[in-house]
Every structure is written in structure tokens, then in C-alpha cells.
């Protein structure tokens, strides 16, 4: 179980208005990483922000509980994987480490 094949899980909980935060996160991304959008970060699973994130060519996840809380379930980009808390925990285990961007 400790033999993770995936590298770093980047957890973002702010909207894309936090441009420096997003830039820092993007600069540290490498193949093998993934991004999880939580809390206010789930707004980035919609619209142009989602397109920008998907261009990074890493798996993109968003917490469904936070999506539903914000009334944006119908606006989520279809290429974003909507996940529950259990999958969030599984990802945290599958990836060797996490970096929280807040």
C-alpha cells in the first residue's frame, strides 16, 4: 500500500482569483501529479478556469460535497472527476505526498 505509483497531490481550496497561489501550484506540477479542488477551489472546475487547469495535463478532481454546497453541479466541466470524501482519502493514500495550497 505504501508503494505509491503517483507523486504529489496538490490540494487547492481557493478560487482562481488567487493568481499567485495558482501560479505557484502550476509551477510545481510534474507528470504523475494531480490536483484536487476543495472548498472554494471547486469554482475552478467550471468555465475557463477548468479549461486552463485541464491544459496542465494532470488528473483534475473536485469534491462533490463542495460543488453541491455552491450550487454549481450543472456547470462542472465534464472532464473533471467529481469525488466524494472517501475517494479524497484514497487519493491522499495513492499519492506519495500532498501539498495544500491555501
Amino acid at each position, binding site marked *: 500500500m505504501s508503494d505509491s505509483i503517483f507523486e*504529489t497531490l496538490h490540494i487547492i481550496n481557493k478560487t482562481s482569483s488567487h493568481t499567485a*497561489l495558482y501560479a505557484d501550484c502550476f509551477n*510545481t506540477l*510534474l507528470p504523475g501529479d494531480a490536483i484536487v479542488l476543495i472548498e472554494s477551489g471547486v469554482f475552478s472546475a467550471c468555465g475557463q478556469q477548468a479549461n486552463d487547469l485541464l491544459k496542465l495535463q494532470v488528473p483534475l478532481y473536485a469534491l462533490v460535497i463542495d460543488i453541491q454546497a455552491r450550487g454549481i453541479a450543472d456547470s462542472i466541466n465534464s472532464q473533471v472527476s467529481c469525488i466524494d470524501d472517501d475517494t479524497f482519502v484514497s487519493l491522499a493514500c495513492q499519492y506519495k*505526498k500532498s*501539498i495544500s*495550497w491555501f
Partner: protein
Amino acid sequence: MADKKLLLIFRNPPFSDSSNKDTLDIALACSAFDIPVSLLFLHDAVLQLIKGQQSQALQQKNLINTFKALAMYDIDQLFLLESDLRRFALSTADLTVNCQAISESEMATLIRQFDTVINL
């Protein structure tokens, strides 16, 4: 217990919120537990390291002396981005501690080497 390499990321300017001091305190505590600690200064965090800070009149704790003392705790792996230095028209000679200036892609590779990253 397995060896764990720790990277601490600073992102805020001096005299801002408590995250700078809180991160520095983690560095000192983990070093005391023989955890190898490296520091990465991103964006405004570079501004904490400028030489010649005279902050007594602010009546705020200045972290610069703690940064200077890090080498005594065997914390001597300090990194920052060349692009941040350029943005603020600084060079590593303007800074009060020895830092390695790296590119964005070198940073991404650097982060891969750590087991744990704390980014307050």
C-alpha cells in the same frame, strides 16, 4: 521510523501574518528531531531575507535573526526562484542568508525529492 525529508514553503512578506514565524518554528522543531529540513521562499517571501532590515521602531518581532541562525541548526538548504529575484530587482548578494536561486522547472524537480511538504 523511516527517514523523512521535509520541505517548508514560505509565501508571505515580512511583518505580514503569523505564517512566517509558524513555519520557521516548525523548521527548528523538526530539525531538533533530526528531520532534514529545506526551505523554499516563493513570491513575496523572498522579501523577508533582504539585508539591512531595521525594524526596531515597528515593535514587531523580526525573524531575520532566526533566519541567520538556521545554519546552526543544520538548516542550510534554502531555495528561491530566479524569477522572483528578477521581479524584485534583487540578487542573492542582497539577501542576508545563503540561498540557491533556481528556475521553475528545477523547483518542480526539487519538490519531488521530499517526503513531506508543509505550505502554510
